């Protein structure tokens, strides 16, 4: 299964796996920006 992708602020696609590949990562999913 393909992991959903997210965009960084420059618009580049990445994945949670990529972000967390070197370090345990706490992903905080906010309810909204604002």
């Amino acid at each position: 299964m393909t992991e959903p992708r997210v965009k960084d602020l420059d618009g580049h696609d990445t994945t949670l796996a990529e972000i967390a590949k070197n370090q345990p990562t706490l992903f905080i999913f906010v309810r909204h920006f604002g």
Partner: protein
Amino acid sequence: MQVHRERDAFRELGVQAVVIGHSSLRYARAFVEETKIDLPVFVDEKRALYKELGFKRPILAFLTPKMFRRAAEARRAGFSQPGVYGDAFQLGGVILRMPDGSMPYRYAGQFPGDHPKVEDLKAEVAKAVAS
């Protein structure tokens, strides 16, 4: 955001914290500009991860008195909510993901303003990193 205030404590545990929001890059950039947040920020434009991780979008959850209580607590703690961008009914959550792909911790908000207490979160993270 309490995790932002405690970011150094998480760094000391060897954990990086990042923020994921939905809606669009435009709002994400405005969020970073307004809050001066010192954490990486990413956007899940279609809320695909929110859905996959089971983070709810329950419209009725917005009618609970708990939401108003949490909003008052947040205001007293110095947090404000200047505006809502994107899907106003989407709830948030927190996961800890390890480099091997495992997810030893997941918290899904049950109503607006529901999030893990930062001390509980630190304890869970410390336990996961130590094991």
